[in-house]
């Protein structure tokens, strides 16, 4: 380009009379326009005046600025000056003199377009404008070319452009290219900054949706580490006035802002509906129906929802398509997985029926329940592989002796290096059994009553039908001892009687020389616990189930009656030497709690 430019300068007809003045004019124009371009916020606005000035300065008829489209397929006129406005005109990037200039990144001077096969006469045909002579300079930046500036038809002299004009236009085009490039970069940075700021705000709002850190003596703790600034995972912990605790761990399909918004919606639904729900099955079913009512654009939510009663160490759990939670017993190092019983939320309404999603009752029995998202199981370990469920189990086992809060951090820390981001959002929640009864699964050596645990009465009687009246009388006296009202006492008496009746009939098979029944009445805070033990062979709890109440037939009614009046009634692992341990728990009436 330099050679092309230098050669004609000496041959210019009036080189001797005006070189200084013209060069100075050139320089002034270049300096002025470069400054204007540099100061411009929007190059398109500047471009129009710039083209006007170039046109006038070069005594040309028209000028236009073409830029390559984002796809690079076409050249679009973004600004022009002249008798015909061609702003918005789009031509294929590979054709015409402009196209040639862009591809070669060289300035082109076409003295007579009728002699140039590349000239696209179609544009003239469209605009009614007649092009005689053309000057095109590429908008080149390094190896890139953004487009080209085109000057059309000289109006003075021979009507043809000179090589000097070419040099001037090339210089101006370089300044314009820089300005356009700067504008584009600035625009991109501003947009990125705006996006980042909005994302930060969203992340902050999202963090506020997560519960506050639990105190050390609280039985449920959680941790959430987003892979990006916003998360599709969440967890929540809500304590009810009666001491029971709602919790959830959920994962929204997809990532980014739309997943974060669905997360916000689902967590609000959980918080709102939990206050009136009776059990997690009903709650998840209600959330599902709400989510299905509005379009979630093919996104769905997997969730484990639980209601934990710390007083008895029992969790009621519903699992909607989520990673199975793990129950871990640190004494036996045994894991039990709680599989999903229902599909994820937000896919189909009313799938659960009126009873809601299936609910599982899990007695922690001194163990710990871990609920987590696939961000943990699918996390990359330091070794490079995927952690997997075995890796999760190993981490839980390795950190079992730590405090819950530290344990969560240790487990999360094992898959996340400081300063590095995760592949997926990670959420982990732990529910600890902090109230282990002396007759629970804990070995006798560790069976220390908590101060709130008050023994009321312990009786041992032969397991025979003729002793049931005695058992009922003892139950009445135990209830009277804690000032329980009459109706409450009657229900407890019936439950204990029915439970003992089952032992007499099923465990001891109505034998006249049956073994004993031991009944232990204990008060723990606002709860009465009754442990009913026998010394017969272990009974398969599956054979003793509540009957279908709609079916009228004698027998099988006892378990239904027990379950109707007790908060909990289940077989739990018996202490050594005991055949079966059936545990009843019944919340005391509010006035004596």
């Amino acid at each position, binding site marked *: 380009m330099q050679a092309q430019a230098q050669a004609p300068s000496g041959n210019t007809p009036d080189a001797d009379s005006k070189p200084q003045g013209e060069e100075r004019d050139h320089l002034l124009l270049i300096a002025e326009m470069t400054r204007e371009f540099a100061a411009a916020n929007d190059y398109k606005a500047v471009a129009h005046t710039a083209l006007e000035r170039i046109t006038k300065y070069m005594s040309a008829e028209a000028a236009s600025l073409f830029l390559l489209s984002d796809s690079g397929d076409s050249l679009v006129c973004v600004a022009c000056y002249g008798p015909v406005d061609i702003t918005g005109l789009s031509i294929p990037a590979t054709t015409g003199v402009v196209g040639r200039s862009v591809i070669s990144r060289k300035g082109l001077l076409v003295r007579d377009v009728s002699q140039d096969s590349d000239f696209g006469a179609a544009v003239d045909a469209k605009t009614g404008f007649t092009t005689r002579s053309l000057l095109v300079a590429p908008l080149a930046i390094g190896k890139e070319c953004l487009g080209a500036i085109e000057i059309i038809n000289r109006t003075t002299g021979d009507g043809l452009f000179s090589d000097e004009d070419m040099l001037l236009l090339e210089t101006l085009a370089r300044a314009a290219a820089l300005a356009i490039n700067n504008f584009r970069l600035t625009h991109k940075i501003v947009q990125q900054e705006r996006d980042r700021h909005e994302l930060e705000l969203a992340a902050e709002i999202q963090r506020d949706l997560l519960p506050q850190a639990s105190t050390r003596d609280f039985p449920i703790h959680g941790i959430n580490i987003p892979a990006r600034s916003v998360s599709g995972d969440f967890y929540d912990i809500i304590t009810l006035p009666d001491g029971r605790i709602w919790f959830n761990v959920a994962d929204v399909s997809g990532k980014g802002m739309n997943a974060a918004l669905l997360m916000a919606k689902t967590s609000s639904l959980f918080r709102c509906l939990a206050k009136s729900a009776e059990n997690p099955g009903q709650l998840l079913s209600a959330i599902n129906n709400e989510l299905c009512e509005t379009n979630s654009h093919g996104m769905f939510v997997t969730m484990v929802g639980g209601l934990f009663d710390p007083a008895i160490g029992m969790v009621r759990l519903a699992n909607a398509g989520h990673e199975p939670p793990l129950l871990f017993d640190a004494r036996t190092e045994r894991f039990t997985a709680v599989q999903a019983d229902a599909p994820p939320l937000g896919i189909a309404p009313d799938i659960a029926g009126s009873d809601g999603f299936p609910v599982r009752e899990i007695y922690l029995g001194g163990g710990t329940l871990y609920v987590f998202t696939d961000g943990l199981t699918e996390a990359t370990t330091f070794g490079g592989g995927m952690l997997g469920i075995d890796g999760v189990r190993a981490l839980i086992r390795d950190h079992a002796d730590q405090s819950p809060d530290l344990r969560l951090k240790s487990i999360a820390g094992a898959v996340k290096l400081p300063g590095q981001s995760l592949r997926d959002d990670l959420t982990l929640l732990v529910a600890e059994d902090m109230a282990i009864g002396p007759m629970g699964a804990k070995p006798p050596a560790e069976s220390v009553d908590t101060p709130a645990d008050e023994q009321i009465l312990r009786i041992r009687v032969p397991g025979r*039908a*003729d002793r*049931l*009246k005695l058992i*009922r009388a003892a139950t009445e006296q135990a209830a009277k001892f804690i000032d329980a009202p009459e*109706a409450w006492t*009657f*229900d407890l*008496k*019936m439950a204990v*009687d*029915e439970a003992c*009746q089952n032992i*007499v*009939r099923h465990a001891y098979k109505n034998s006249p020389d049956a073994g004993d029944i031991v009944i232990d009445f204990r008060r723990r805070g606002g709860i009465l616990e009754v442990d009913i033990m026998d010394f017969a062979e272990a009974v398969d709890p599956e054979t003793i189930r509540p009957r279908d*109440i709609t079916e*009228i*037939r*004698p*027998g099988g*009614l*006892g378990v*239904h*009656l027990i379950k*109707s*009046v007790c908060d909990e009634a289940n077989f739990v692992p018996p202490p050594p030497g005991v055949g079966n341990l059936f545990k009843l728990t019944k919340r005391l009436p509010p006035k004596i709690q």
Partner: protein
Amino acid sequence: MSYEVKNVNGAAVVALTGDVDLQTSPQVRQKLLESLEQYKRIVVDLSAVNYIDSSGVASLVEAFQVSRKKGSTFSLANVSSAAMRVLSLARLDKVFTIHPSVETALAQG
């Protein structure tokens, strides 16, 4: 537990007293089935029942089912609050015909 069967105008009025439980319900069951052999109308007076367990309720259900097969009438009367609690928990309060008193039971059949 004790029981008493009275013939009132050709109907059997079976009055149960005390606790009907696993120990005593076999006698109640036997007495009800015997009465169904002899009478076309049975009224069970539960006013003096302090306690009735699932086996006692099962005896009542069995007698009720036999009466339907035979085309006899079987009703409960003057049900004590203790017995009513168990019957309603068992959702049987809507199954049995329950009269406020033995007199109304006999009057209505």
